[in-house]
């Protein structure tokens, strides 16, 4: 395919979602709701078609670049690139977004703000495509912030719920921490290398870690993971999109891009944080009661797995896991949405026995959950083996404390089996809690995407050999070095862990909700409470203090001024009564003049404001001359 055609297709890819976002935003509710959903689906379908065409035509990586800003010797290019990673992510993002939007047509039916909903979704997809296609750090940062904005809009979509708007604010603020560090990292990169391109040489550890902080916030890594469970306040299809293809994947894409720029110390930190996140997320998912929160923490845990894989130098493994994870996690969320749609609650204690009522959803859920847990023959098993194998090989080379990484990852994958089995038991087995209510399967528009994603979670699509993915066509496509296979004992060991974990999760009796362990898990290790105490409360206290100081000092000054004027007037009156008229008039005029001066500054007259501004400018002019 000639380059010019690819450039055209690229423009079309990046343009379509934004056109959709603006168009749907303008149309709002002026068209019937089915039309806006149809339009959004159509746009994404075109995008999917184009990206499949691009992905199928294996070509040289394409770079497209033009000067954006240049001043006094510094030039910042506007550049996009289309390499193997972009091709992969284009298909994943479009595929998941298409299914999610199809699903949303039915799930969101009857919502008053259906037009803006699809507009935000398109914005989200467009921003994510921008991240995927960005050719340097600066462009990536721009779209990065756009993803933040879109996630804020979508998480807080039902903004009339206080919890939703609080969750949206929290996600936004948490991401700001990471974004600030990311921006700092870009600046450090620029200082060190003189360009904002994705470099191939390692930078200093500090710069690498700053860049990595962006990923920490977006991909909900330890310690900035608390926003992800709260983000469940958004509509369920949004959660599916957010967890599978767009928001959290952005961090992994960033990490894949900057991987060559990280020094070996930085990579060790990345591996450590990934492992900690995998364990933390897995532990927190154990005793959650909300069906979506379990999935949220499982996402945290799986993201930890990917980040740890990146840290161990296993970029291809992490991306492979991202791909398989996108399929089954989107499937899980959409299936959970179907369940919530059917029983109108998110509390797993109020579910149970849904196996018979929702057979399709049940089948899809079991397949996806098994894939997540890493049951053989399914996609999750393959990618987890690649990640774990890479980690074991890496640790064997390092020795010592490095062994903690594969051990932690193995434990977290065992935990995955435990909580997924527990969730299956709570939701689908047991007796229905409410005999009156008979849940129904949703329509085909919702069932279809779920089943399709479940089918895509079967391992045979990714590798012919059901026990190893090392000869998968995926790696040949990605032009990335395939890591050496892990030791032979790894696969049996992890299968055994999954079986034991699954049995435990299925058999385990629910601990009392107030036991220490369950509480610690439910509050995800009291991380939020810690932040509350460490950061939020001191900030509030500072704000309170400043407020009080403002009240005391500033207001006191103003009041004192008033009292002083009154006092002055009294004195004047006193002297007046005695009869020294001249002094009295002078004092009175002074008081009036001062009063008018202070009053006129805030008089609401535009001209006064202009005069003040000019006076200040004059003052500055004087200063300069």
């Amino acid at each position: 395919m000639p380059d010019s055609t690819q450039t055209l297709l690229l423009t079309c890819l990046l343009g379509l979602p934004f056109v959709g976002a603006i168009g749907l935003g303008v149309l709002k509710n002026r068209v019937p709701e089915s039309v806006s959903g149809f339009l959004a689906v159509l746009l994404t379908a075109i995008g999917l078609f184009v990206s499949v065409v691009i992905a199928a035509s294996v070509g040289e990586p394409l770079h497209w670049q033009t000067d954006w800003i240049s001043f006094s010797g510094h030039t910042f290019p506007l550049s996009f690139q289309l390499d193997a990673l972009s091709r992969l992510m284009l298909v994943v993002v479009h595929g998941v977004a298409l299914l999610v939007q199809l699903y949303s047509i039915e799930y969101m039916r009857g919502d008053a703000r259906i037009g803006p909903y699809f507009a935000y979704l398109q914005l989200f997809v467009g921003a994510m495509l921008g991240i995927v296609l960005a050719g340097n750090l600066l462009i990536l940062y721009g779209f990065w912030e756009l993803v933040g904005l879109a996630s804020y809009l979508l998480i807080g979509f039902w903004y009339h719920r206080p919890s939703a708007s609080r969750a949206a604010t929290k996600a936004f603020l948490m991401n700001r921490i990471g974004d600030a560090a990311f921006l700092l990292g870009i600046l450090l990169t620029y200082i060190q290398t003189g360009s904002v391109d994705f470099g191939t040489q390692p930078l200093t550890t500090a710069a690498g870690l700053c860049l990595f902080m962006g990923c920490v916030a977006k991909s909900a890594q330890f310690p900035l993971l608390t926003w992800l469970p709260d983000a469940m306040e958004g509509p369920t299809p949004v959660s599916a999109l957010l967890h599978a293809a767009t928001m959290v994947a952005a961090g992994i894409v960033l990490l894949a891009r900057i991987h060559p720029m990280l020094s070996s110390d930085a990579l060790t930190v990345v591996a450590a944080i990934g492992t900690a996140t995998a364990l933390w997320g897995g532990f927190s998912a154990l005793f959650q009661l909300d069906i979506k929160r379990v999935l949220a923490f499982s996402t945290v845990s799986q993201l930890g797995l990917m980040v740890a894989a990146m840290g161990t130098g296993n970029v291809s493994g992490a991306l492979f896991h991202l791909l398989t994870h996108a399929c089954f996690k989107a499937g899980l969320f959409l299936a959970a949405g179907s369940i919530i749609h059917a029983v109108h609650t998110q509390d797993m204690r109020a579910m149970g026995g849904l196996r018979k009522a929702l057979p399709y959803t049940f089948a899809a859920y079991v397949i996806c959950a098994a894939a997540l847990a890493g049951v053989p023959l399914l996609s999750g098993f393959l990618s987890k083996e690649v990640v774990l194998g890479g980690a074991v090989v890496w640790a064997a080379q390092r020795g010592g404390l490095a062994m903690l990484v594969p051990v932690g990852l193995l434990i977290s994958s065992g935990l995955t089996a435990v909580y997924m089995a527990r969730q299956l038991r709570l939701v689908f087995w047991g007796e229905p809690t409410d005999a009156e209510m008979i849940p129904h399967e949703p329509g085909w528009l919702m069932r279809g995407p779920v089943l399709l994603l479940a089918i895509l979670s079967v391992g045979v699509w990714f590798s012919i050999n059901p026990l190893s993915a090392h000869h998968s066509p995926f790696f040949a496509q990605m032009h990335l070095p395939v890591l050496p296979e892990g030791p032979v004992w790894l696969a049996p060991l992890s299968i055994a862990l999954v079986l034991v974990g699954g049995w435990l999760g299925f058999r385990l009796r629910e601990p009392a909700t107030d036991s220490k362990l369950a509480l610690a898990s439910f509050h995800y290790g009291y991380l939020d409470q810690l932040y509350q105490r460490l950061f939020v409360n001191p900030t509030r206290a500072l704000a309170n203090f400043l407020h009080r100081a403002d009240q005391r000092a500033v207001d006191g000054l103003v009041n004192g001024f008033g009292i002083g004027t009154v006092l002055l007037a009294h004195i004047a009156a006193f002297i007046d009564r005695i009869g020294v008229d001249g002094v009295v008039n002078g004092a009175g005029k002074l008081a009036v003049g001062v009063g008018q001066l202070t009053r006129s500054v805030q008089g609401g007259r535009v001209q006064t404001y202009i005069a003040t501004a000019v006076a200040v400018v004059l003052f500055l002019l004087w200063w300069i001359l």
Partner: protein
Amino acid sequence: MLQIAFFAFIALTLIGALTVLLTRNVLYSAYALLLTLLGVAALFVFAGADFLAVSQIIIYVGGVLVLVLFGVMLTSKPTTISTSTVVASERSNAILAGSRGVWLGVLLAAGLFFGLSRLLMNAHFALFDQPISKAPTTIDTIGKQLMTEYIVPFEVISILLLVALVGAGYLAKKSIKP
């Protein structure tokens, strides 16, 4: 001869501007503004900008000034000042506007002028050492520039004019539905 004309036009411009400032009658202000705008157009000619001079007359004198006059008339209220005053500018058909904070304003303006002139006196502009234009007219250069280098601003400004037209019409409508 040419210099005398030049300074005469400068005097015309400044006198017009001062009249805008000093008169109380809004209509007189508008007519004085006409003087100033014409003077500036003449100064444009002296500075070798013939096309701009013509545009100045067409746009400002023909367009903006007429708009301003209409604005004055559409917003005038019957004055309460009695018809018996002898001052010409306060007759009954005058539309009066007072001033406020005169000293402050004049002080600020004088300060600004003083500062700017000090700046100009101390400055030496490198551009003034360049050779001067000998072209008989600037129209072809401006035309080429507008169609090549400034094509984007040119198109954008056409959209701006359209938007301003629609916006002004919409704003000035009898009633705006909330």
